[in-house]
């Protein structure tokens, strides 16, 4: 059951990213623009005839009106779609919200929230050069146009991802795998099908649903690849329940070996590098770093930590409270303060979202700043990461691949800056990730030991060759 119900055939293209992208690719730019104008006109007409559709512009998370997604043609469904919308966005084309404004002036106009939300739409599609960054999804857009049964656990997980309730490569991967176990257990092989072939297809829309909530994490992608491999080798003779149990066991093993146990081994390797009296700097929140620091403290090592944090997610606060609870003396600072403190730091511990094939680290935005500054001051930078986060990607900058955080978090109205949001010439960019070049990293602490970043590709090649897996880009 799809989560959204398009209002009418005219809007189907826009609210149906998958089909829409395919169709769009075949149209030229001019044709796309034309299509869009038609859609906008149709929507304006629909709004005129149905004033209750004004509620579509409100940014309510529990929005019941899934009928007309707020950001219809402007939602970043794909590069071809966005460039078309962006070009047309530059012209002062009336937006659906503004239409509603004109149509129902007696209703007191739109309230400030509406106006901000609406401008956010406009602004977002003005940021053309960042159009390829995925942006946070509204309720109505999760799972838009995905055909197939979506398991309720997956629906809930998608919501949690979109609301940033579950963040972090490890957390998201584990949550996804646990959800998949439920999905697999509830799965019934259709007649005349084999589990080995059908289950993968059954899982595809589930995965697409999660991706529509938030772009796939590298850790999640690697885990899915592993799962699909295990599904594909299930023998036809194995009874269904046994096969399902076996797959759930494989999932448990993956989590246990590649994440949980790997973290224990990383702890052992990182431990000798923490001397008594050390001053350790860390950024935002990494589950591995947090674990290593708390473990070192409980083993009697005495050191202090400087937790560096940044807006808008302020994940460092979670790290800070966990460390303080363990009794570790901490200093909390924002990323703009690191310059003053770096000369007192003996060691920098960082986490990672993904490690690329050339040894560069893709991690929370701000990590690269900390690593760069540390390197300049000859402070060793240790990136703690399990090997399952390896990606065969070759990324040279933070620009080609990234994700945007929700706009409203950056300029909070309570700070009194809300009026800035109404400026049409203001563009707001809030990337969630950045890339740290391998030259700024001293050592990668993985479960196979301390390795220089340049050696990670050898390692990954070996590991997967043993299993006969091909690493997809």
């Amino acid at each position, binding site marked *: 059951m799809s989560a959204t119900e398009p209002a009418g055939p005219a809007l189907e293209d826009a609210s149906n990213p998958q089909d829409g992208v395919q169709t769009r690719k075949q149209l030229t730019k001019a044709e796309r623009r034309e299509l869009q104008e038609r859609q906008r006109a149709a929507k304006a007409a629909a709004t005129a005839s149905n004033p209750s559709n004004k509620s579509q512009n409100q940014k309510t998370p529990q929005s019941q009106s899934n009928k007309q997604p707020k950001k219809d043609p402007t939602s970043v469904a794909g590069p071809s779609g966005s460039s078309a919308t962006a070009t047309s966005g530059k012209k002062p084309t009336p937006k659906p919200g503004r239409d509603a404004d004109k149509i129902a002036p007696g209703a007191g106009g739109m309230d400030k929230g509406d106006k901000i939300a609406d401008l956010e739409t406009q602004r977002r599609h003005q940021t053309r050069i960042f159009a390829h960054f995925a942006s946070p999804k509204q309720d109505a857009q999760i799972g838009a146009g995905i055909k197939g049964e979506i398991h309720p656990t997956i629906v809930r997980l998608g919501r949690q991802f979109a609301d940033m309730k579950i963040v972090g490569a490890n957390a998201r991967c584990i949550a996804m795998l646990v959800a998949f176990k439920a999905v697999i257990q509830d799965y019934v092989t259709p007649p005349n099908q084999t589990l080995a072939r059908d289950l993968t297809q059954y899982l595809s829309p589930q995965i697409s649903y999660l991706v529509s909530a938030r772009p796939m994490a590298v850790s999640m992608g690697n885990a899915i690849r592993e799962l699909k491999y295990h599904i594909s080798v299930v023998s036809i003779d194995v009874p269904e329940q046994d096969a399902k149990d076996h797959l759930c066991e494989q999932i448990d093993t993956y989590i246990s070996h590649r994440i949980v146990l790997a973290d224990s081994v990383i702890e052992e390797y990182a431990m000798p590098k923490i001397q008594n009296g*050390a*001053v350790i700097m860390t950024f935002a929140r990494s589950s591995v770093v947090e674990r290593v620091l708390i473990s070192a403290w409980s083993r009697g090592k005495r050191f202090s930590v400087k937790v560096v944090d940044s807006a808008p997610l302020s994940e460092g606060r979670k790290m800070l409270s966990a460390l303080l609870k363990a009794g570790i003396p901490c200093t909390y600072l924002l990323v703009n303060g690191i310059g003053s403190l770096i000369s*007192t730091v003996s060691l920098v511990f960082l986490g990672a979202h993904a490690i690329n094939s050339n040894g560069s680290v893709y991690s929370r935005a701000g990590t690269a700043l900390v690593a760069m500054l540390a390197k300049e001051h000859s402070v060793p930078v240790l990136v703690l990461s399990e090997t399952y986060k390896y990606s065969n990607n070759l990324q040279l900058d933070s620009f080609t691949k990234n994700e945007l955080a929700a706009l409203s978090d950056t300029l909070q109205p309570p700070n009194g800056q809300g009026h800035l949001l109404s400026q049409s010439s203001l563009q707001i960019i809030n990337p969630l990730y950045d890339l740290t070049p391998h030259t700024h990293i001293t*050592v990668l602490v993985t479960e196979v030991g301390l390795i220089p970043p340049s050696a990670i590709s050898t*390692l990954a090649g070996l590991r997967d060759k043993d299993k006969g897996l091909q690493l997809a880009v």
Partner: protein
Amino acid sequence: MAHKETTGSKFDIIAAYKSFVNDPDISMPVAAMQSLSELIAQTEVATMFELMEAVKDAATRLKRHYSHNSVSLSAGCDVFYQFISSLRDFGQDFEGFKSHIIAAVREYAQNTKQVKDTIANHVDAFIQDDSVILTHGYSRVVVNALLMAHNKGRRISVYVTETRPRGLGIKTHEILTAKGIPCTIILDSAVAYTMEKVDIVMVGCEAVVESGGIVNAIGSCQIAMLAHAFHKPVHVLAESYKWTRLFPLSQYDLPTHNDHILSFDLVSTPPTSGTNSPLPGTPRRHHPVLRTSDTMPSLLFTATSVPKVPPQPSFSSSMSNVMPINQAGRNPEVDYTPPEYITLLFTDAGILTPEGISSYLVTMSLRSES
């Protein structure tokens, strides 16, 4: 200083090591391997597990005994351990297992000259006619390579640093001049002065570490950094048994470092203003340690180990040209040269860049684990 084992068996690993290391052709890691192999030959245990434990035990004792200079020795022990744990085809044949190891190590020790020749052949193309080479201390591999080039008729001249405090550069000088290669000893502090006249820097090492850097006699890091500044290539010659999975983050992260090295004497009255001492609870990075006593590890720097150098004419007679013993004890014996200052490593496994070392080590260790 022979101490009896606590495990009950009568094998004395330290004494065995000492007997093997006396051979001038045998380096520390190979002597370590030979002594461990001797342990296996003489052991009374009957299971694989007990044997591995005995080997691990002996290796730890050896390393601890030579902790001030144990990096190459550690490397040798680790290579040996990895070698025996990777032997799979013996199953229940315990005696066969033991004799295979013993034979392998014996062959290894006999082939050290061959290994050095392999390396010399690799580096041959890089020693050009009429070139000036700078080297540090005494490395058998380097001397072998230089002699080989010389014997092929190439005209080379060599600068060698004095390499205080052990003065091993003087030994290199003796050997090279005896064979007819022009060689001059330069002060350790004259390397910057000399560097522009040098074509290549060629050094051996105690160990190659995971980062692709090396651990070598103190002074190597300085030479490498200067060579880097002057754009001269730094070539390291290293046998593959010297490779270790250590990863030092800095000089003070080496296993040979301890609190006594680079520490300060606590003079008569402690500083009252507290400007130099750290406030409690605010540790500073690399803050020097204040020591209240002059105790130093017993093996470092006895009076006899400081070599006698020819008296320098310009010094006044009242001033000694050797630092006081208690100061000498605060100095390190080896340093770590980071991979960014090393151009190429010449090994019996081939010619590798510093980045390639780790790939090789990772491959080797994964293979032995599986």
